[in-house]
């Protein structure tokens, strides 16, 4: 019977089977790869202080809110949260304002040296963070920006700028010149052009850029650690202090979750805007 089924049908079946198998395997790997680390952190964050979770036990004996209570009561996490989430909006706004004219020029105009400037934009990513942090800390000390809120905003802006400029200039670049020409022919003023062409077409890229700048600021460690501590603690620096010599797994789990959950929620909210893969479009070329 089997031989009566034409070859191409059998091949198609075999291929379908292969794809199904691959997908199933992949889902399994994904659950272990992403799910397991997060699950472990969640479990650890609920391990009660009185009943430890140690080697032979597969699961914690008693679950409780102890670590959460401890971290929010006795550590600076609340202040760190406030600091982190107040620096980020300023850094995003500032990097947006700074990058707007630059992105427009890089995206839509031609001039000598454009390639060079496109690489210069990436320098904050290329330069190793600790080198930038240590030398900037000396400069910041000289101009009295060290250990200040403004100093941290400036530092975070610098780290967010490459993503913002690259993503924005890519979106400016994708606007077809025909549309602009047509609007001009029909007598559109600069204001109308901005409102009806530039803004709607750049908006998704702008949102993507803001998200990248925002997450960059939330997770920035090197500069914050050197310029901000001990006056300012952000969530990453507080987590680092939990991971060093006095490593307390339960407390670190709480901080890790506090730091991670808003970001993941943000990811699922903005999935739509990341669909176009702005990051790859903007960083894929050097």
């Amino acid at each position: 019977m089997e031989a009566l089924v034409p070859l191409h049908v059998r091949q198609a079946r075999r291929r379908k089977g292969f794809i199904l198998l691959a997908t199933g395997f992949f889902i399994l790997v994904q659950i272990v790869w992403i799910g397991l680390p997060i699950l472990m952190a969640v479990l650890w964050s609920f391990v009660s202080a009185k009943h430890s979770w140690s080697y032979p036990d597969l699961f914690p004996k008693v679950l409780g809110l102890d670590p959460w209570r401890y971290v929010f009561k006795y550590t600076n996490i609340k202040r760190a949260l406030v600091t982190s989430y107040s620096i980020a909006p300023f850094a995003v706004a500032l990097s947006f304002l700074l990058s707007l004219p630059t992105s427009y020029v890089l995206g839509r105009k031609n001039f000598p040296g454009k390639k060079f400037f496109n690489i210069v934009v990436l320098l904050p990513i290329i330069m190793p963070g600790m080198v930038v942090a240590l030398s900037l800390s000396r400069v910041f000390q000289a101009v009295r920006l060290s250990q200040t809120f403004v100093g941290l905003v400036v530092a975070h802006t610098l780290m967010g700028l490459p993503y913002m400029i690259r993503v924005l200039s890519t979106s400016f670049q994708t606007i077809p010149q025909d549309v602009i020409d047509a609007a001009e022919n029909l007598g559109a003023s600069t204001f109308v052009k901005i409102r009806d062409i530039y803004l709607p077409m750049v908006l998704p890229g702008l949102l993507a850029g803001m998200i990248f700048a925002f997450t960059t600021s939330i997770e920035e460690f090197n500069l914050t650690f050197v310029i901000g501590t001990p006056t300012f603690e952000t969530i990453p620096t507080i987590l680092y202090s939990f991971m060093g010599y006095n490593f307390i797994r339960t407390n670190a789990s709480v901080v890790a979750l506090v730091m991670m959950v808003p970001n993941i929620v943000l990811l699922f909210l903005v999935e739509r805007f990341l669909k176009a893969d702005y990051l790859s479009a903007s960083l894929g070329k050097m």
Partner: protein
Amino acid sequence: MKRDGTTRLHYLMLVPGVGVILFFIATTVIVTVARSFGLFSITGTSAFTLKHWAVIAMKETRDSVLYSLKMGVLASIGTVLVAFPVALFFRKGGSGKRMLGSLIKIPLFVPALVAAFLIVNLISYHGVVNEVLIGLHLIKAPLRMLNDPFGWGVVFIQVWKNLPFVLLILSASLAGIHDDVVDAARNLGAGRWAVALRIYVPLAMSGILVSMILMFIKAFGDFPIYGVAGPIYPPSISYRMHATATIFQQWDQAAVLGVIIIVTALFVVWAYSRLAEFVGGTE
């Protein structure tokens, strides 16, 4: 005449973005280089000297540089090796892949330190990985993967954290490959492996190179992940630089280490751009 005017305007509009970056990065480079020669010293006297460069002759410095180079190379190769098949898998859309697609992007939004912590939970001495391996009778005693002398723990964390980042870049270059080319190869009798190695890899080479270069620089300059999961000795070069400056207050020697890091990063970027020209021709 008009052209000159508009060009000048364009350069002016570059100032807020590129200017700010150039200002800060140039300051960084100048301050670091000058200090490594004993100039710009805030405490003590400033005079040109080469004596701080003696640190490069120290065994500790050499060990740190070698360790960081090793991490950069292994992390960049490892991430691309893992990410490339995944990118191929995602190239064709299909049922359930959208959900998987957002699931796999999660580490991109998990800060590096948190990623380090998450993985530390798994690979610690009595962590899940060791217990499972023992349960399956694959190993007799738990493996030391955290703070191991070689640094495999750090490599693993780098791969986990940066997989989605590399995946995005690779997906973009794979998306640019026409199906016709693949179909033609298939028609001519190329198997799955031949298509992957002879069509996808060469055509996605620019994306592969970019992701390797970015990964190398990230892993080479790493500070926090080393601090959490790295070997006890040697420290990563960034870690040594930070300790030299802030704990031992040897800012000049730290600057020398900084120069080493900058020069290595720039050299790698330069080598990449030459390689990209060689591979991709003139673009």
